[in-house]
């Protein structure tokens, strides 16, 4: 009962945050809405027993990635979204498409998962067991992602660094 209540409360916060993300016209509001969504998702993870995932969700996602977003928004001093007439395809085809696809997926998931339920802390994800899994069974993907991160760092540095201004006097 407590589980269901907590789920519903934080699920509602999640959905509210997501809808607020859509409604707000200022990017920083959207970003903070996402932080809220992430924080309440962390609670949902805790409910499912994935405490380590929840902690990492807060530290990495909310604490680092979203700070980066906020930082960039501040850096570029992005203002309120302007109203432009872009593509009608996105509105006419895309949103119905998403809704149709979402409904289909939801239907299938409900059909397939049936009435299975999970209890509070259904699968405790202790750091130790997750570490074992990560460094034994998933060692290769883990290494590959580390390479990916390295590449991403270098790519970001190259992309964001300002190109050296051509200064002939300096060169000579």
């Amino acid at each position, binding site marked *: 009962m407590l589980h269901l209540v907590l789920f519903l409360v934080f699920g509602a916060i999640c959905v509210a945050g997501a809808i607020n993300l859509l409604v707000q016209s200022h990017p920083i509001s959207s970003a903070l809405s996402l932080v809220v969504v992430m924080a309440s998702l962390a609670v949902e993870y805790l409910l499912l027993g994935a405490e380590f995932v929840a902690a990492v969700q807060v530290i990495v996602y909310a604490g680092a990635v979203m700070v980066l977003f906020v930082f960039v928004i501040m850096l570029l001093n992005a203002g309120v979204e302007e109203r432009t007439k*872009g*593509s009608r395809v996105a509105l006419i085809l895309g949103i119905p*498409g*998403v809704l149709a696809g979402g409904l289909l997926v939801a239907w299938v998931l409900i059909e397939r998962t049936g009435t299975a339920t999970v209890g509070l802390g259904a699968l405790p994800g202790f750091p130790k067991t997750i570490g074992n899994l990560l460094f034994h069974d998933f060692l290769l993907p883990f290494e590959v992602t580390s390479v990916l991160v390295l590449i991403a760092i270098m790519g970001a540095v190259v992309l964001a660094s300002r190109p050296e201004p051509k200064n002939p006097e300096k060169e000579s």
Partner: protein
Amino acid sequence: MTPSLHLWLIPILPLIGAAINGFFGRRLSRQTVSAVALTFCGAAFLMGLYVAARFPSLELPHAEYLGHWIRSGNFMVNFEFYLDQLTLVMLLVVTGVGFLIHIYSVGYMWEEGGFYRFFSYLNLFMFFMLTLVLAGNYLQMFIGWEGVGLASYLLIGFWFTKDSAASAGKKAFIVNRIGDFGFLIALFLLIKHFGSLNFSQLFSSIAQQPAETAGVGLLTSIGLLLMVGAAGKSAQIPLYVWLPDAMEGPTPVSALIHAATMVTAGVYMVARSHVIFGHAPNALTVVAIIGTLTALFAATIGIAQTDIKKVLAYSTVSQLGYMFMACGVAAYSAGIFHLMTHAFFKGLLFLAAGSVIHAVGGEQDMRKMGGLRQYIPWTFMTMTAATFAIAGFPPFAGFFSKDEILARAYEANPAYWFIGVTTAFITSFYMFRLWFMTFFGDYRGREAAEHGHAPAHGHGHGGHGDPHESPMIMLVPLMILAVLSVIGGWVGIGGRFEHFLSPVFGEGATAVATEALSRSTEITLMVISVVAAVLGFYLAYVLYLKRPELPQKIADSLGGLYQAVVNKYYVDEIYGDLFVKPLVDGSTRILWHGVDQGVIDAAINDTADGARHVSDSARQMQSGNVRSYAGWVAVGAAVIIAYMIWMGVR
């Protein structure tokens, strides 16, 4: 097992020289380039001498295996080098004459542009020619065979900015391809029926077969196809047309490739394949007939030529005909003997002609020469030796080899002998014609020069003024070759040369043949051929020194025949009309306009047009707007999900 002689070094050395000059020559000085070329070519010659020195102690035939090349099922081709008496003769001729011509070329080409290119090609040629000579199987020989063709093409077209040189190179290449085609088919037949291309294996298995005396059997076909190849490379009827045009190349090239070495590759190949021909008498007969006809035919054309190098070119064709005649009557050693002496005196003739051309500033027309013996005495003397040698005066080299061929021809069929003697007479005549026109009488080049005729080649000096002698670096090779032209034939006295080669060609055939001819017949034949040579000399003397007005009258009285001879019997024109024109027309109309433009291009163009029309409408989707792309993705994802569910439900 005899110790390895490292035969592979002999061809590789010139290749290294070619690579150095080819890759870095542009940046090297002329001195360095020539030093490199001469060093590596000379090293190959020294290796040849070393091999000759070790020769008596070798167990023959000596084969050196280097490694696998091709292996396919039971069929195997190796990299191997093969040494026997025949190879040794060829090896020494090629490296020796080649080295002399290298030396000569340094002097001759000194003023030319592309100096390094020339020597790179020349060394490359040496590499391929030595590969050909030393090859232990037909395929390796074929590499050399194709390679010398390539080097020949490159060197004929050395002055590639000149249109005639470029097209002469192409002509040589294409005509050679026809011959190569025959050679290649012969190789395929050999692989199919004997499963090997290795000389020793092949010949021993063929030797067990019965001879094909009648009709056209397998070996006869192979022999005939080989003869096609040989005819291409050695300029025999009907594929001789490229050789006269090849004179567009620099004169040392004419001497080295188109007189002394490459063109004799066909003779060498026929001699090397003597086992095959021995089992195919009909093919051998064809070889003899072709050789005999070529000898006569080319000699008659040579009479009317006025270009000094063209005369020598036809003379070369004619002499090659002699060699084939010898091979055709199974007198291989006589043919090889003539090949050797011919390399000496014809190489010398070309080099001397080069010296003459050099002296008169690039002029090649004999009618504008004359009286040159006072200006260029050394050239004159060496050329004299060569002329007497080719005309067959004893004791010059040509006498011995030619006499032996004629004797053996007589023995086989007097008709061959008769044509041979006639040819010898004509040869003597046109060679002395050349000699008299060039060196005697008065110098006729001056008025031409004064009339402002530009020299044919861009020789920087000597275009005007008196002819002058060539530098020593050109004269020394001339002298060495002159000495060889005089004494080179003496090795054949008393059948020593034949005896030396007899392990290759079989003791029996030669020994029996020499004894078949009685001593008196032999002497009679010898006398007749000498008389023919003297007659030729006398006729030339009368016509071109005593009464220079006579030739024109004779020419006028002969009319059409003379015109035919001057125009080389219109063979080039006939070939042009028969083969080239239909081919060009057919290619233009059917292949170019019809197939290429009508089908292939049209298909591509229509495809491209279609693609453009389709994409014209499709690109409306590609608005560049990220959100519209996202919309398409969303719709696509929904469709795929729906499809998967539908498939899953069913």
